[in-house]
């Protein structure tokens, strides 16, 4: 998934850089848990007060939104989908999908090409469509909007596997041939290829049902018709909450004349209240009566966190917690229980471009794997609390079998003493031994060819990034690789990195985060050759690029390693077989290609105010499960619907 505001993870690195120096003396293990321990049953009532200084990008349009904040709100509160998550951590099944609008898990044909979903009956939308039942054509409507050429959807590529979707998206067809609704409570999805994670794709908020327009039943996109870029301001909820004032929506008017949701004020406030229509939702207890989010793009993170500590607000929707706040929560007895640290499925890494010398040589890449001092990087970035060292590509939470075993937990193909790389004699020896085998190195293990000098490298320039860049620069100098380091802001970095013709040999700042809890999302756009694109290329290493692609982007080296076969092998699988397959793909990447040096996995660090009880971590949203939060005292004044 793209990080808020800065594509691909730089913002996460910058934000996590604000969790910079956490004194190791404070204790590296973290003091929070994945949920608050309270013996008192959660009470219903009250209004959860949140704050954020980051507005969403597309005004809550469910087909366009592509950020964690919006995913969290959609999944917990506003939208139900055929499948969904239980809103808990991975250790409690938070990585699995469960039937939500569906009555049970879908049935899949033996060839894996036909998925049949049966839907619950008697579920209705929020006002003003409280009398409208949620039916299977409503799901079709959502998928049509995802593929609509006039709607800039966030992730349509996940639905290319549906037969006819590509033709519909290209404007060659008026409907999606692979979707059929033999009755109002059945949806049959026909695929072009077996896709083991289709259940996850139907848990994405973009697939949430769109109701028909009672005033215009023939409108293909229902109430979203005419709102190509701003349906969020007219969205009808299907979850336990709805935007305040939802009853004021008036679809009898033309789209441009329709009033917008009063509870959704861009840049100011988002107000959610209970959806009176919502019933039969065992996955979302929805203890609080409402959720009020104050949006202050100009507010500083420090100020917002102080408000949490003071109890003025209950939580800040943010990327990471400031070092000073973290220290305070770790060391203050009555605050410790309001600090929560959970693994989030993200990573940071160094990307080596396989098409540029000296990184076209696998021995050079392996030497780099050994040389980088990951322990020093971890110290620079704030210690083990927020930055557990990564020894392979895919976060462990995504490579967990049904029995809870993390397949690659102890897998470390480039282990060096204390993970200190070339800063130890043992690590340096290993790195040099690899370099000595490369065509750019000499027998002593130093990279001596001219390609080893002046290697263009991009790194960030904010927070701890300069120190981080400097550490890597020193590490690689020990094996003879001299970096020409350019430190830029995130936007400038990605202007270069996303363009494959830039031919950047080394990138120090990329990061990645799951879109949904399946390792597919860690390979599909980053390591799969067919997805290398000229406009927004996240495969910085050019893994799997064909000779034609390499020529097109101006590379003199045209043959690079590929793992397309490994990825394609895993795509149709399900269950533990799928997890094991992705684990094998991870190993293949690390050992046979070594295109990236994983530095850290990420943890989500969260603080809550004093009245919050029953904190539960939502693995999918990498944040707090707002439908499970309860407040001390329960009742307080609730915003009116």
């Amino acid at each position, binding site marked *: *998934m*793209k990080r808020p*505001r800065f*594509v691909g993870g730089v913002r996460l690195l910058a934000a996590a850089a604000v969790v910079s120096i956490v004194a190791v003396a404070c204790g590296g293990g973290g003091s929070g848990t994945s949920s608050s321990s309270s013996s008192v049953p959660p009470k219903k009532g009250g209004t959860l007060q949140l*704050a954020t*200084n*980051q*507005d969403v*990008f*597309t*005004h809550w349009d469910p087909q*366009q939104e*592509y950020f964690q904040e919006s995913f969290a709100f959609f999944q917990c509160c506003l939208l139900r989908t055929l499948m969904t998550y239980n809103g808990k951590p991975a250790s409690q099944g938070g990585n699995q999908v469960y039937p939500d609008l569906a009555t049970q898990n879908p049935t899949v044909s033996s060839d894996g090409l036909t998925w049949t979903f049966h839907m619950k009956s008697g579920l209705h939308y929020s006002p003003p469509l409280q009398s409208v039942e949620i039916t299977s054509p409503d799901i079709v409507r959502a998928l049509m909007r995802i593929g609509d*050429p*006039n709607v*800039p*959807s*966030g*992730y*349509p*590529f996940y639905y290319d596997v549906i037969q006819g979707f590509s033709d519909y*998206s*290209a404007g060659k067809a008026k409907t999606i041939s692979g979707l059929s609704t033999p009755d109002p409570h059945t949806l049959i999805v026909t695929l072009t290829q077996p896709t083991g994670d289709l259940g996850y794709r139907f848990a994405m908020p973009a697939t949430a049902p769109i109701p028909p327009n009672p005033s215009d039943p023939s409108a293909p996109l229902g109430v979203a018709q005419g709102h190509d*870029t701003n349906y969020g301001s007219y969205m009808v909820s299907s979850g336990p909450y709805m935007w305040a004032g939802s009853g004021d929506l008036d679809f009898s008017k033309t789209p441009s004349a329709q009033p917008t949701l009063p509870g959704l004020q*861009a*840049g100011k406030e988002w107000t959610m209240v209970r959806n009176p229509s919502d019933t039969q939702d065992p996955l979302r207890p929805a203890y609080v009566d409402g959720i009020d989010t*104050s949006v*202050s*793009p*100009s*507010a*500083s993170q*420090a*100020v*917002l966190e*102080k*408000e949490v500590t003071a109890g*003025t*607000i209950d939580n800040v929707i943010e990327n990471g917690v400031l070092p000073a706040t973290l220290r305070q929560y770790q060391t203050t007895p009555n605050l410790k229980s309001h600090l929560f640290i959970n693994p989030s499925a993200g990573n940071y890494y160094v990307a080596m471009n396989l098409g540029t010398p000296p990184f076209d040589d696998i021995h050079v890449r392996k030497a780099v794997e050994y040389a980088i001092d990951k322990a020093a990087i971890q110290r620079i970035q704030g210690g083990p609390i927020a930055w557990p060292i990564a020894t392979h590509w895919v976060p462990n939470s995504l490579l967990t079998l049904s029995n809870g075993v993390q397949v690659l937990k102890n897998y470390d193909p480039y282990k060096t003493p204390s993970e200190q790389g070339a800063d130890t004699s043992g690590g340096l020896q290993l790195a040099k031994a690899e370099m000595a085998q490369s065509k750019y190195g000499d027998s002593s293990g130093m990279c001596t060819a001219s390609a080893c000098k002046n290697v263009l490298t991009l790194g960030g320039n904010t927070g701890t990034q300069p120190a981080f860049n400097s550490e890597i620069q020193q590490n690689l100098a020990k094996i003879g690789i001299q970096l020409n380091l350019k430190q830029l*802001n995130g*936007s*400038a970095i*990605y*202007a*270069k990195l*996303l363009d494959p013709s830039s031919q950047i040999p080394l990138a120090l700042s990329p990061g990645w985060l799951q*879109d949904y809890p399946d390792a597919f999302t860690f390979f599909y*756009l980053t390591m799969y050759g067919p*997805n290398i*694109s000229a*406009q*927004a290329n*996240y495969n910085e290493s050019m893994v799997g690029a064909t000779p034609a692609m390499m020529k097109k982007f101006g590379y003199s080296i045209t043959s690079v390693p590929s793992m397309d076969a490994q990825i394609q092998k895993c795509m149709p699988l399900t269950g533990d077989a799928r997890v094991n397959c992705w684990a094998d793909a991870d190993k293949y990447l690390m050992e046979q290609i070594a295109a990236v040096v994983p530095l850290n996995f990420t943890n989500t660090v969260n603080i809550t105010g004093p009245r919050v009880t029953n904190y539960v971590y939502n693995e999918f949203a990498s944040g707090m499960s707002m439908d499970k939060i309860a407040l001390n005292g329960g009742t307080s004044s609730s915003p009116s619907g």
Partner: protein
Amino acid sequence: MGRLEGRPTHEPFQESSEPGEHVGRYLIRRTLFGFLVLVVVSLFTFIVFVKLPTQDPAIRLAGKHPSPQELALIRHNLGLDRPVWVQYWHFARGLIPWPGFFLDPRVYYSWYNTIPVRTEIVQRFPITLTLTIGATILWLLMGIPIGIVSAIKRGSAMDRSAMVLALIGVSAPIFWLSLVLLYVFHFALHIAPPPGIPAGEPLWKAIMSGVFVLPWISLAVTNAAFYSRMVRGNLLETMSEDYIRTARAKGITERRVIYKHGLRGALTPVVTMLGLDVAFLLGGAIITESVFQLPGLGQYALNSLYSDDFPAVMGVTIVGAFFIVVANLVVDVVYAFLDPRVRYT
């Protein structure tokens, strides 16, 4: 008596038979010139951004793995598929200070948070205005009296001390001064409130809680030092003028000589500087707002620059330039009013 040969027909001391007409023409000319300045500033800003190697905003706003069609759609929605000169024209129309034109939300639409730039500016301006007004009052209250006393007691220990302090004040970088004040008065002595304004808190409440005190002092110290030196220098110069000697010769008390005759002339340049300084601050005191976490225009400008949010940068730049242009005009008009030797030409 005939006309002297060679004397220009339009003497600077000639008065027009209709002074109002003179002023009117002057104002119109200056207004048009000011508008031209805004156009040049906007054009320069636009060219810089077109040339900067920033990320395509369409990619930022698109999901991952956008198709070329999707990117084209977003670029079209943002107006980026139009010729460069057409894009500039749309932004340039936002310079017209008229409802429906000025910072048109359809064009000045933040690429970072998709909020109209005008909305952000309107929300943030009161904070910058509060910061500016408070600091201005403070530095005038500090700088002018110090400058007067220094000039009157020239060469004394008080004068020397004041000028040394002024030198320190002028030399101290404002970010350093701000951080020192914050450390001493908030972190060490716990006298000042924490920096920043809590989300949703009204501005008046923030003012009453003292959030602006340290930022006012920080801004005021630097400017007060400068103004005290300026007032001292001007007053010393003015006090050596012939008309001051004449006033003294007439038996007017020294106090009256200084305050009624000397100060008027000495403060005239101060008016000029004051107008420009205030206008500059109204565009956003970037450093002060950043250190003290005040969500004003300066912080907005900085954040917009970091995020390559061109519409926001353009909007803030235009607003800042607008204040400078207006201040220049006001100062020139007031200056002519204050100094009878100056005429509108």
